[in-house]
Structures are given as C-alpha cells and as structure tokens.
C-alpha cells in the first residue's frame, strides 16, 4: 500500500470509493439481477460468468483498498499528531535555550564586573592616602580607623615583606596544573 502515501486524501478517497461503488453495483447486478439483464441483453448469455467473476474481483479489490485506506488514514493522523507534538517540543526547546543563554550570559557578566571592581579596589588601596580617603569618606570614625589600620598593615607588608619566590612558583604550578596533566597524560594508558 506504499503508493497511497503519495496521493492526496481526496483523490485517494475518490478512487477507492469509485472502485468500491462500481464493484458493488456490478456484483449486485451480476449476482442478483442477472436474469432481467439477460432478457434485455441476450448477447451476454455466453459470458455472464466472466462478468460475475470480474464484478466480484472489482468489489474485493475495492474492499481491500477501503481497508488499506482506513489504515493509511489512521497512520496519517498519528503522524500529524506526532508532528504537532514534536513542533511544540522543539519550540519549548528553543525557549529553554534562550532562558539558559540569558542566565549564563547574565551571571558571566556579573562575575566579570565584580572581579574587575575588586581588582580596582585593591589598586585604589595601594595608590596612597588620597585614594584611601575616597574609600573611607562614607565610613564612621570607628570603621575608618579599623580600615586605615588594615591599609597600614598592607603597606608595611609591601615595604618589608616581598613575596617569596617559592610562593609564586607554587602558585604558578597550581595555575598550570591542567596544562601539565594534559602534557604528561598518555592517551593509550587512559583508554585502558
């Protein structure tokens, strides 16, 4: 019945019902009304058996196609239903994508901005008392003195305690850990 899928519903219906209609009428005539017909057309007397056989064959083909047509229509309806469901699911997937994209982009921007602000803050602190004043201008006297003590501690540390070389080296080792792992990993061993 594969040819059915290429035909439009209306044409298919017309063809099948025509075959079924012709088959039914011909079968009724050939089986039940053959005597009156032969009275009017005596020439058919020699071949009425063939007429009966052909009529029944057309009728059976019509019934078969009618069954096939209904099956085909059931599948077409199911396919249409599925297509509609899939379309809704695809639209929903696109909406989810937009939501996730917005969330990721927003958080990324906030993280970047906060990091930048923090670095600027550190830079301000080490730029001298004038910049520190900018930071402490809205603080209470108590908060200001505490903050200034922290800045003093930092300045002392910068003057008197340079960062030990080993601290930098260990920090950098940790920072390039993944690169080192990638370099030293034997892919064949990982597969095992």
């Amino acid at each position, binding site marked *: 019945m594969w*040819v059915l899928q290429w035909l439009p519903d209306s044409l298919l219906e017309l063809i099948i019902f025509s075959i079924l209609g012709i088959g039914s009428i011909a079968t009724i005539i050939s089986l039940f009304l053959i005597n009156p017909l032969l009275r009017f057309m005596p020439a058919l007397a020699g071949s009425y058996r063939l007429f009966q056989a052909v009529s029944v064959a057309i009728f059976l*083909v019509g019934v078969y196609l009618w069954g096939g047509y209904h099956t085909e229509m059931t599948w077409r309806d199911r*396919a249409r239903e599925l*297509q509609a469901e*899939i379309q809704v699911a695809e639209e929903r997937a696109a909406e989810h994508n937009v939501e996730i*994209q917005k969330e990721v982009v927003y958080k990324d921007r906030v993280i970047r901005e906060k990091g930048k602000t923090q670095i600027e803050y*550190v830079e301000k602190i080490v730029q001298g008392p004038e910049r520190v004043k900018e930071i402490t201008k809205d603080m209470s006297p108590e908060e200001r003195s505490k903050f200034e003590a922290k800045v003093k501690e930092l300045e002392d540390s910068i003057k008197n305690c340079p*960062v030990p070389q080993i601290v930098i080296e260990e920090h950098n080792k940790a920072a390039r850990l993944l690169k080192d792992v990638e370099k030293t990993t034997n892919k064949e061993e990982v597969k095992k």
Partner: protein
Amino acid sequence: MRFLILALALAVSGCSILVPVKQKFPEAVPELKIKCPELKEVDDKTKNITDMLKIIIDNYGTYYQCSNKVDGWIEWYDTQRDNFNNPKKK
C-alpha cells in the same frame, strides 16, 4: 496485460510505510561552547603581594565563569533531555 498485473501487484503490496516524523535534538547554547580560558600565572619578578592578589582575584573570576558554564551545561542537558524524551509534556 502481464505488465498491468505486475503493476497492480506492486501497487497493492504491503510495503512498510515510512512515517516522516523526526524530532531534532536542539543545538546547544553558543556561549556554553566556548572553552574555559587558562588561569593566569604570577610574573616571577613580582615582589608585591597586591600584584599577586590581583592575579588570584582574576583567577577566581575565571573559575566562577567556568563553573557558571558547567552549571549551564548541566541545566541545558537535563532540561533538553527531559523535553526530548517527553514531547507531550506541557
């Protein structure tokens, strides 16, 4: 006549019908497909602790940006898998 019989037999043969219904798995969010950058290293000549601190802050930021992407991937996959497996779900 023989050709007609053959054609008729072929036409009524019950071949399987290919139902043209296929669901596409969605494309991932482009921002999630960007690789995480490498962490910054401190210059060997640095003696100032605040210079080191700035690098550390920057690296924390990089970590959180990456973590944000991984969380995004997890959410994306869970949501899209659920949607793909249950297309009827409202």
